Structures are given as C-alpha cells and as structure tokens.
C-alpha cells in the first residue's frame, strides 16, 4: 500500500466517528501483557500461605510476548496502532517498557499491588473500565497466565465488551468482512474461523517468531507515553472476587520416585543397570 494512502487512513481513523470497523484497513490493537515470576524462579509461600513471596525475578508471560509480536506484525501489514496494557504493582512497568522498546506505540498501566490479587473476572472488568473511551478493532491476550493459569481473562473481557472471541490462535488474516483466524484444537487438529471485528483473540505461544528490542527502540521507548491508572479510578467497576484462594502449598507427591545420585559416570552405570535388569529394555 502506498504510504500516502496510509496517512489518509490514519487520519480517517482518528477524526471520523467509526461505527463500521471494517471500513478502513487500519487496525488498532490492544495487547494484554502480564508480568509473572520467571520460569525457574524458586517460589516461597507468604506467611498466610495464600500467595508467593514477591521477592523473585519476573518476566513477561510467554504467550503475551507472542501476542505483542503478532500485533506488531499486523500493524506493519495494515498500519494502525498497538497499545499494551498491564495491571500490577510498579515492578510490572518493566513489561510495558519492553513492549514499547519492541515497537508498541503507547501503554496503559493499572498500577497497584491490589491488582495482583484479583480474579480473572475482576481483572477483565478493570481492563474494560480502563479502555472504555478507546475504540480498538482487536484485543489480544495470551491464552493463559503462568501464575494463575485461569485461561479465562480474554474470554471474559470479550463477553463484558459484547464482542466475539476465539481462543488458542495460531494465525490471523484480515479480510473484507473481518478476520480469519486459525484455532489450535487438541491432538494436532486445527480449524479456521471467520469472524467480524471488533474481536478478542487469545494467542498461543509459537504463532510467530519473536523479535528482539533494538537499541534505537529502547531509546525511543523513553519518549512513548505510559498512561497510569490508579486503583481508585476503576474501583467502582470491580467488585469482590468471585473465587478465593484459601491456601497455597507445595503439591503432595503421589508417586514413589527413586532418586539416582552420584557422579555422571556412576549415574550412567546405575541407570543402565536398571534399564537392563529391572525395566528390561536393553
């Protein structure tokens, strides 16, 4: 598409009241990105045993990084805007900084410690309240979080907004009437689904190849806006949690596991002995 044309479309997008979402080719995409404990961070329980002690290292929830990458690719194809949103304490701003460095245009930070304890229903309600004055064509979430693992926030958000949704997405193609997405099903099956915009999609890891932030990107990110939203601003939109963690614990072991110790050479000998004489596979 010639660039003059793009400019015009962005202009239309910004200044005309858009009631038809497929009229322009521009895509305005919101990406929900969560900060979660690093994969190999050793976790300790808090005193009440209802959550972990927060003094661990954090990273971006894996599928959310793929969701951002997909949004950036869609913007490169169709022009438009990529906005990232997170809810969590001050530390979670890091996720937004990284996203801005990779190319997101701006960010929204629902900043408060209390957001960590919200169930998926309330997190989605807080997001819906935070974006009520915006007009997105697409919202991407990861398919599930590494900490809570609800696998629900995106679908709930879609329902709250009255939008259609599709989950576990491995491909997205914009067309005349909306989008065609590829859903991953169980056991190696897939399915294409046609759907109108606006829509919510939950993105599966591996949908694309992640990019790294460039030095220029990191520099430019410093000047990109992060809108901060305090808990008080969305408090009226959220309510009591509908589910409650009574206790958190290290899971009880159900299987009797035999540990094989020693130097690598000793382990190799012991293991081969078992493979041969107990398991009889050698």
């Amino acid at each position, binding site marked *: 598409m010639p660039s003059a044309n793009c400019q015009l479309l962005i202009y239309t997008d910004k200044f005309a009241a858009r009631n038809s979402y497929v009229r322009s080719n521009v895509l305005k995409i919101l990406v929900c990105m969560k900060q979660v404990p690093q*994969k190999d961070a*050793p*976790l300790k*329980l808090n005193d009440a045993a209802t959550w*972990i002690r927060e003094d661990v290292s954090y990273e971006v929830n894996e599928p959310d990084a793929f969701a951002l990458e997909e949004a950036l690719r869609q913007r490169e194809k169709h022009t438009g805007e990529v906005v990232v949103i997170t809810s969590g304490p001050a530390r979670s701003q890091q996720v937004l900084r990284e996203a801005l460095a990779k190319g997101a245009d701006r960010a929204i930070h629902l900043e408060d410690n209390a957001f960590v304890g919200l169930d998926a*229903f309330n997190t*989605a309600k807080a997001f819906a309240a935070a974006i009520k004055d915006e007009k997105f064509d697409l919202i991407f979430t990861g398919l599930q979080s590494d900490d*809570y*693992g*609800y*696998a*629900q926030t995106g*679908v709930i958000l*879609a*329902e*709250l907004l009255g939008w*259609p*949704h599709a*989950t576990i997405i491995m491909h997205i193609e914009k067309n005349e009437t909306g989008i065609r997405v590829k859903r*991953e*099903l*169980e*056991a*190696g*099956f*897939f*399915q*294409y*689904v*046609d*759907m109108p915009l606006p829509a919510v999609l939950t993105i599966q*890891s*591996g949908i694309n190849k992640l990019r790294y932030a460039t030095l220029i990107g990191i520099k430019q990110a410093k000047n990109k806006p992060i809108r901060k939203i305090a808990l008080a601003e969305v408090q009226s939109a959220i309510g009591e949690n*509908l*589910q*409650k*963690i*009574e*206790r*958190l614990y290290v*899971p009880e*072991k159900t*299987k009797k*596991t*035999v*540990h*094989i*110790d020693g130097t*690598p*050479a000793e*382990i*190799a000998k012991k*293991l*081969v002995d*078992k*493979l*041969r004489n107990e*398991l009889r*596979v*050698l």
Partner: protein
Amino acid sequence: MPDAILVVVEQREGKLNRVSWETIAAGQAIAAATGWTLDAAIVGENGSALAAEVAAKKVTKVYAVESPKLEPYTPDAFAAALKQLIAAKQPKLVLMPHTYQVRDFVPKLATAMGRTVISDCIGFKHENGNLLFTRQMFQGKLAADVSFASEAPWFATFQNGAFRGDQAEAGASAAPIETVKVEITDGVIRNKPQDVFKEAKQAVDLTQAEIIVSVGRGIKEQKNIEMAKQLAEALGGELAASRPICDNGWLPMDRQIGSSGQTVAPKLYLALGISGAIQHIVGMKGARTIIAVNKDSEAPIFEIADYAIVGNLFDIVPPLTEEVKKAKAGS
C-alpha cells in the same frame, strides 16, 4: 429439593469424549461427599443417541440439549444454550472437563450469568461443609485450594486425568432422558467455523515407539539436539520433544508430545530438561517407566517420574549414551 450437580459431557464427531467419563466420576465423588444429586447434560444436535450412554451411569437425569444452531460448535451458541438450561434447572454446581472447547466457551457462559469458573481443577475437598477445589498454579509448582465466594451456580472444570473415567459408576437402571430444545435467535452466533483439519500427514508414529527420548527447553540450543538423538539411537528409541522445541522449529511438529501433539505410552520415556507442565504430561503419563533428568529438584516432572536424576543434562547424557552402547555391545 436437594442441591444438584450438573455434569456437561463433551461429544466430538458423534462420540463421547473420553474425559467426559472422568468428569462424571468427579461428579459422582462430589455427590457422594455432599449428598447432592447428580444430573448430566449433552449439548449438540443428535445428543439423544449419546445421552443413552450417559444414562447408563449412576446419574439422576440426563438432558439432551438440542438446537440445529449447535452444529458446528461455536462459543456463542454453546454459551446461549447452556445458559438457558442452567437458568431452567438451577443446578448448584456445574462441572465440565477442561478441554480446549470448554475453555473456549465456559468463561463466557459464567460471565454472562455473573458467575465465575474455578478452572483446570485436579481434585476437590469437602471440609466442614465447605467445598474446595484444588488446582495447580505457577505451572504446577504449587497447588491451591479454592472456594467460591459467589452465589450458585458455581462452575468448575477438571483437568484431563484428574479422575479415572473407568471408575464412573454404572446406575442400577437407566436414568431418564429429557430432551431440552433451546432457542438460539439469529444474530447470536457471530463466528463462522470451517472444517476441522490436520496440518500434514504424520511422518512418524510415536505411539508405536517402545522407547522415547524427549527433549525440552533445557537442551538450550538446536545443535544440542544431536546429543539427545545419539542417546535415542543407542537405546533404539525415537526422539520427541516438548512444545517449545517444535515451536522453534528444532524438531518437526509431529515429534511434539502433549495435549496439542501426540499421546504416547512407551515402555520407557526419558525426559531431558522438561519441566513437566500438565499439557506435556497428558501426552506421556501413560508411559510404563518415566525417567527424568532436570537440574531443578522441584521441577513438576519429578512428581510423575519413576526415576529422578537431579543434575545437568549436558553432564549426564554423554556418559549415559556411552554406557548404553557398551551394554548393547556386550550383550
């Protein structure tokens, strides 16, 4: 009337999905603990035929929820249909298997009713009259007991393998089946699903392999796959992997083990640098013997391993390969 549990079973291509029996077993266990009654529902055109299969189990009633709009599956139609059923029958607790289809529509259904889902549970506890659901958190490193803080209906989904389907009790006589015709108005369904397909013909059939050496992200780099391959060859087994390895293109997709890949049950499954996320475990927990090598002693894979080797796979694998070769040469 006593409180009721409603189990929604899942059908696929005219057959009941195997996990449906697990959820019925879960429902029966909760019914026994609480004294609540247990009903089942099957959603979709021609559910009546399959309803008879469910009615043979120990349940009070089976609802066959029907509308021509339920075929093919869409989250809009399923949520609308079940909302009508639940509003009419008012169960206290609604249980479903945590399948990809259920996770696609159940958060929508619960939200539409102003309720919540405790998702992906592995068990339940009934303590002093309170019902708690146990679920994994932090990728299986921790578990949580979770309660409902809202009014009924309560929704919970159970993880694949959480209960034993073959332990679903048969009923003394067939339960009555009630066909429930639901009205799904035009415009409710917004998605247009196309036919379900498989990407490409599978080049390897890992389900037949007796020995599988499987690599995870602990292998670090593509070039290190060769080391695992040599061990697999020495053992006369096949090479497989966790999802991130296939996502990276380090091994072809048809060697992926897990919920979105193959399900295998070899004599020996050797997991190298695999953490043991549930989506991987569902694909290999049927192995007769599981050996896991992982540098993290707390890795969830050790919960299901028969033999645990806590250590660096780069130290362990080469001498192991040599030792296997020696043993084979000597025999």
